[in-house]
């Protein structure tokens, strides 16, 4: 049984504002506490509902910082972010984030299926256990990402490509409307790239909105609706064709 008042952080599932884009970033500046200079400054863009943007830039250009700020993991120094018209963190259910692999404690004794099930925890809240529907979502997501065979394998025993697909599976299992994917194709083989491309295409058909950070737009087998190019902490919004 899932009780409304036991939602994490007291944040419940809110209806989106239909007049607003999936994401609106205005005059955003972000920096770390110990550094005087901002990592990102005057970043502004909209992501319309159902669109998929590539976020490109060199190492250290602020790609991960931007995604973490939109996800609510970092507080901006200035500016505003609205997710489906709501303040960041107002609804944890609507945003999912694919972290980079080094952020995970891979030695922890948890199996793949349980790891992906964590994507459903936000719908359970405190004390409640995942129900049959949550398990069914995990089941189908594992199948789609070709992870069913390793469902009982400890996460530390997976290959690089399997780890990446598992992280993506958890983000997808959450059932969010905005996906923030940090380097989903980092150090993966061609077969994983094809599986990920298929999944992203399906999500876009279903109207999900996405920002996909990448070193190289060319390595993605699927088209983007636009490119956000970060350079020196500032942003350029480019049509996809120019970026190719």
């Amino acid at each position, binding site marked *: 049984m899932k009780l409304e008042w036991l939602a994490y952080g007291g944040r419940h599932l809110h209806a989106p504002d239909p007049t607003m884009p999936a994401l609106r970033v205005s005059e955003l500046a972000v920096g770390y506490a110990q550094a005087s200079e901002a990592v990102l400054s005057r970043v502004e863009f909209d992501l319309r509902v159902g669109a998929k943007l590539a976020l490109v830039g060199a190492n250290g250009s602020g790609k991960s910082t931007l995604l*973490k700020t939109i996800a*609510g993991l970092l507080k901006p120094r200035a500016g505003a972010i609205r997710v489906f018209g709501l303040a960041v963190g107002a609804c944890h259910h609507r945003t999912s984030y694919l972290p980079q692999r080094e*952020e995970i404690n891979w030695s*922890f*004794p948890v199996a793949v299926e*349980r790891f992906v099930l964590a994507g459903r*925890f936000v719908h359970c809240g405190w004390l409640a*256990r995942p129900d049959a529907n949550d398990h069914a979502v995990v089941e189908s997501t594992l199948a789609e990402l070709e992870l069913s065979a390793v469902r009982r394998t400890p*996460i530390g025993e997976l290959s690089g490509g399997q780890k990446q697909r598992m992280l993506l599976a958890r983000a997808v299992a959450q059932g969010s409307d905005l996906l923030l994917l940090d380097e989903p194709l980092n150090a993966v083989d061609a077969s994983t790239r094809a599986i990920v491309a298929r999944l992203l295409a399906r999500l876009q058909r279903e109207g999900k909105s996405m920002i996909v950070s990448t070193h190289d737009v060319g390595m993605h087998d699927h088209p983007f609706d636009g490119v956000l190019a970060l350079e020196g902490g500032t942003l350029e919004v480019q049509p996809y064709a120019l970026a190719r």
Partner: protein
Amino acid sequence: MHWLVEPWSFQFMRDALVAGLAAGMGCAALGVFVVFRRMAFAGEAMSHTTLPGLVVAQWQGWSLSLGALASNLITALGIGLLSGRASKGRGVREDAAIGVVFTGMFALGVMLTSLGGSWRDLSHLILGNILAVEPGSLWFMIGSALAILVVLAALHKELELTSYDATYADLIGIGSGRARLLVLALVAFAVVSGVQVVGVVLTSALLISPPATAAMFTRTLRPMMVLSVIVSWIAVVGGLTLAYHADLPAGAAIVGCSAVTFALAWAWRRMRG
């Protein structure tokens, strides 16, 4: 067979057994999180930081359990406050915070002990005194073990997630910092029980050895917690039996059995390749 049964014909040995099983259960179940969250140093530190609380409680004639618990909760809060924002680059690294609080509290305990004038009075605290456990302490140990199990069961998924992916836990509103503080508070309770069984010096063995042994046999969390508790119970029963017959300090015998169990498991694992 008589050799195995004889120790339990005495009330003080039966009390010691209950105390050992209760303390072992709380420490071993929680210990899986301590080991895999890489908090072994915190467990070691907390066992030492009971000292000032124990000394003050002994002076004032208060409950030693509550004195030790107060001391450890202060330690847990201190570590939590100092290192709470370390992951965001704003706090002290956790190992450094533990090192500072641990040594500071232990030094305070040593100074208080010196002011009290007698180390002999505290030797049973430093080395444990499970064979003379008082009824109040026994109930504290049983209550602590049950409380730890209830929290681990009720917040299992949150403690699990924050252990391997603090970022995602923060994203969905669980708050990895709060979970970390909760684990530290649970360690405080577990350690206070452990101190009375095996003493300040050896308590971390109850937190670390059984989970480390269990990890040789299984790679999933719940079976590992169950196996860890079983391993600790084997060490308690074996240690008390050995202490009774060989006239050894009971706490050291329990920790010795725990170490032997680990060594056997390690050898078995090596032989299996």
